[in-house]
């Protein structure tokens, strides 16, 4: 065909950037960033304005989170004080700028009754109803019910009276189980009602318009969710590595996995630095970043594999550089489109979508970078190593030039 066709191109096809030669200084930057990500964790825990390694949502540390809409303008510290006087210690108040006078209130209590209160209530019950009468006042954290176990029947009113005396407001007290069990169930008032009461008392009646969202996670459930999150990340990495081993060969595996760890760590680091909320959704976003970063690396590796059979006369490092250059246009285009979409979600989205998009924005950038500057050098290094050991089967690996 004589007529040469012209395309709309961002990158000329005859370009040949030297990527492989520049890996050393860039690898240094990568290491520095990874280090920074890790340093931020203990640093965050001692910073007075932060206090936790990551801004863990209640998913991971347990507790209660509510969105409270107020009828007037208030500052976070005013709300915090009001919560404090209502008995909710150490509450965190985060303004939600997307909404009018809306705040996220977070505190550690997951049930309307604290262990100290429960203990006090048991003492008062024993005092009033008699030591021998009360067998046990059972209450487990996270529950919204308590159980009073007695040795003989007592009027419901008497129990309600004693509970009120020890500062416990109840929705209902009723018999539980068989009559001869003499067990009474105490239904406690919901946390959101308690919070509304606390805020309205201090800030004036009608201050709270509504509490449209409530989430609470018990400490045990929080630990489970955290463990599951870590397991899922490890499982994903393991399975992906397995797939690479099957589809490519052993030299390709470590490169992809190191690149993917690099990306996951940097995304976590971004959350540590910005102190954005780190929740279950963030784990999902990191997993998506991992998938995306893999996608990117595989496109480059696929081309390398193809070129090694085509360009037998060239050195492996050269082949890698050619392959990266050949796929560069695609890499940049794809990253640009995904970045565009996630940027739109970040700017115009809300809540979960926004946090998710933020993670993806960071992930797309580091993922693109890592497939060129992290995965490829590791592949070259491993290839050289395996070649050297094939040539000199008895030589020690320490003699291999890197």
């Amino acid at each position, binding site marked *: *065909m004589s007529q040469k066709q012209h395309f709309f191109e961002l990158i000329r096809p005859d370009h040949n950037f030297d990527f492989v030669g520049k890996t050393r200084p860039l690898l240094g930057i990568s290491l520095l960033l990874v280090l920074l990500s890790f340093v931020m964790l203990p640093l965050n825990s001692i910073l007075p304005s932060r206090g936790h390694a990551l801004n863990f949502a209640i998913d991971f540390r347990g507790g209660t989170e509510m969105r409270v809409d107020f009828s007037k303008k208030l500052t976070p510290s005013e709300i915090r004080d009001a919560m404090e006087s209502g008995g909710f210690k150490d509450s965190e108040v985060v303004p939600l700028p997307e909404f009018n006078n809306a705040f996220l209130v977070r505190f550690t209590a997951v049930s309307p009754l604290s262990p100290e209160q429960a203990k006090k209530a048991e003492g008062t019950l024993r005092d009033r109803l008699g030591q021998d009468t009360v067998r046990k006042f059972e209450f487990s954290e996270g529950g*919204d*019910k308590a159980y009073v176990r007695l040795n003989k029947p007592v009027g419901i009113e008497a129990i309600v009276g004693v509970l009120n005396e020890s500062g416990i407001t109840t929705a209902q007290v009723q018999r539980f189980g068989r009559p001869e069990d003499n067990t009474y169930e105490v239904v406690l008032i919901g946390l*959101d009602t308690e919070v509304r009461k606390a805020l309205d008392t201090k800030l004036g009646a009608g201050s709270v318009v509504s509490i449209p969202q*409530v989430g609470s996670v018990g400490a045990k459930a929080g630990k489970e969710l955290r463990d599951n999150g870590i397991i899922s990340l490890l499982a994903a990495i393991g399975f992906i590595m397995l797939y690479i081993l099957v589809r490519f060969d052993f030299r390709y595996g470590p490169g992809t996995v190191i690149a993917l760890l690099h990306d996951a760590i940097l995304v976590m680091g971004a959350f540590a630095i910005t102190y954005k909320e780190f929740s279950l959704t963030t784990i999902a976003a990191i997993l998506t970043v991992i998938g995306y970063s*893999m996608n990117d690396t595989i496109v480059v590796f696929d081309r390398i594999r193809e070129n090694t059979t085509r360009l037998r006369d060239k050195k492996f490092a050269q082949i890698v550089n050619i392959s990266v250059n050949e796929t560069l246009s695609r890499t940049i285009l794809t990253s640009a489109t995904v970045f565009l979409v*996630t940027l739109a979600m970040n700017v115009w989205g*809300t809540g979960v979508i926004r946090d998710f998009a933020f993670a993806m924005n960071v992930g797309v950038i580091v993922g693109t970078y890592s497939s060129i500057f992290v995965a490829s050098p590791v592949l070259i290094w491993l290839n050289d190593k395996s070649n050297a050991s094939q040539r000199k089967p008895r030589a020690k690996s320490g003699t291999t030039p890197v």
Partner: protein
Amino acid sequence: MERSFYYRVVAYSILTLLSAAVLIPSVEDWMQRPNKLSEQAWFKKIINRKIALGLDLQGGLHLVYEVQVDKAVSDKADRLSAQIEEKLAKDKKVRGVKVRREGDGAEARLHVVFPTKTDARKLDAAFEREFAKYLTRDGGNDAAGEIIFKMDADYIDELRSYAVSQGVETIKNRVDKLGVTEPVVQRKQNDIIVELAGLSQGDFERVKSLIGKTAQLEFKMVDDGTEYMQKLGAHADSHKAQYFGLDVGYDAWTAKDSGTQHSDVYIKAKDKATLEKFVKELPSELAIPSDHEILFELTSRRNDEGEETQDKVWRSYYLHRRAELTGEYLTDAEVGWDPNTGRPEVSITFDSEGASLFEKISGNNVGRRMAIILDEKVNSAPTIEGRIGGGRARITLGGFSDPYQLQQEAKDLVAVLRTGALPAPLKKTFETQVGPTLGPEAVNKAKTSMIIGTLAVIIFMLVYYRGAGLIADIAMMFNVVFLLAVLAMLQATLTLPGIAAVVLTIGMAVDANIIIYERIREELRAGKSPRSAVQAGFGRAFWTVFDAHVTNLVAGVVLYSYGTGPIRGFAVSLMAGIVCNLFTSVWLSRAMFDWTVGRKKVATLSI
């Protein structure tokens, strides 16, 4: 043009039409506008699946309860203690045996303490065999006449498992009565997961209390015409000034069959607290006998014609403490209407044992009143007209309340009665409630970002690849249709993260196209004809695209298996997106390319 091309076009068209049809019910839901086609019976029969909106989009409750299984074990141990005491006294004539439980759950030990060493020998192997299913001997102290039992390990497992499954059934039945569409009640080890979508904010507390409710239904005999109540009435009469609104009332009725006259005294007040205070402050000579108790009922005051008025008052009943019958014998409860008053009522059915008990009790107490007590409150105390066989009884819901509210009350009551008490208490470990206004707000915001993101990608592809970009955009549209159709077929739940996944899929959908197009461009640059360039481009790029998709799919599968709630929604959307993606970008756009390059000998390709 090859014949196979036409086959492909026909196959893709059918697939697209099917997908569009599958989506009709879902789209209707979102638009809230039914159309003619979907109202046809045949259509409903074939296509009834749709995408549900997640809790975060339409508001609702997500609760996780942990069943306190050890309490169920401890309770059983307590009941066994009583049985052992009773049996030893009855069969072996050993008096003064005390059985006490130490420890909870699997650690529970029953210490059977005999008054003398010789008595302890009466607990022989035969006796032990009767309890073998539940207990095994765990040492003892011969000198002190003490024998220790522990609960059988298998039986403990059975009890625990039963407590959870019974809890699931109980909650399921209660939730089903709420009229929530597609409630989810699942078991996960010792946890029970409850998801209720589309509830209004005001319902949250009601629902939560209903789920955890442990209603106790009891039937007790009213002790009529006692001297005690006359004394109490006189006392109340003389202390009216001290208790605001306290009054004394008299019942009088004639038993239908025998014609015997009955009469009784009761106390009443507008405020229940007044009555409770009065009873609490009774002088010691008027203290309620230990085998009796006084409970209250909320009734409507009758006017002079004996008709009920809007006026409500609390009245007392003097009852035998012993429950003749409890909710345990109940098999069924139903909401009905009392034909005389038009009020909702709850009819209950007993099992055979309960029915025979009920028949015996009613037979022995004709002319007297039996109180139906729910949660320590007298619901009603009808006079027994005669022996009642068949094991049926009715609870009428009283008062001139709002009829809707009454019916709701009746339904809630049925839900509680039908499933009885929970076998073990529940502990809430996880809770999310989303107000119904929050969902649409989030959807709107998500919609904006989705439209902007999608438009950006569409325009970008058109500018960069022109004709081929158009193909990619069309393929992307199909991709979204297929993806939603798959979600509808799976009856998946669309959550906020799920929407993010759909948008993300759009971003990734073009990725496959970009890989292929860049390849085609390379082939064109190398001097190939458009037709062979398309062929080579698709052929060479296929495995790259495939590998890239599989790795993403791995991430999706992992997310699905470990995630919960909204994360699962994300994973489902992601996986469905990846599969549809592979199909549209590799095969569907290939067909479109074949069409552009295959019609005539084309010299150039718009790419």
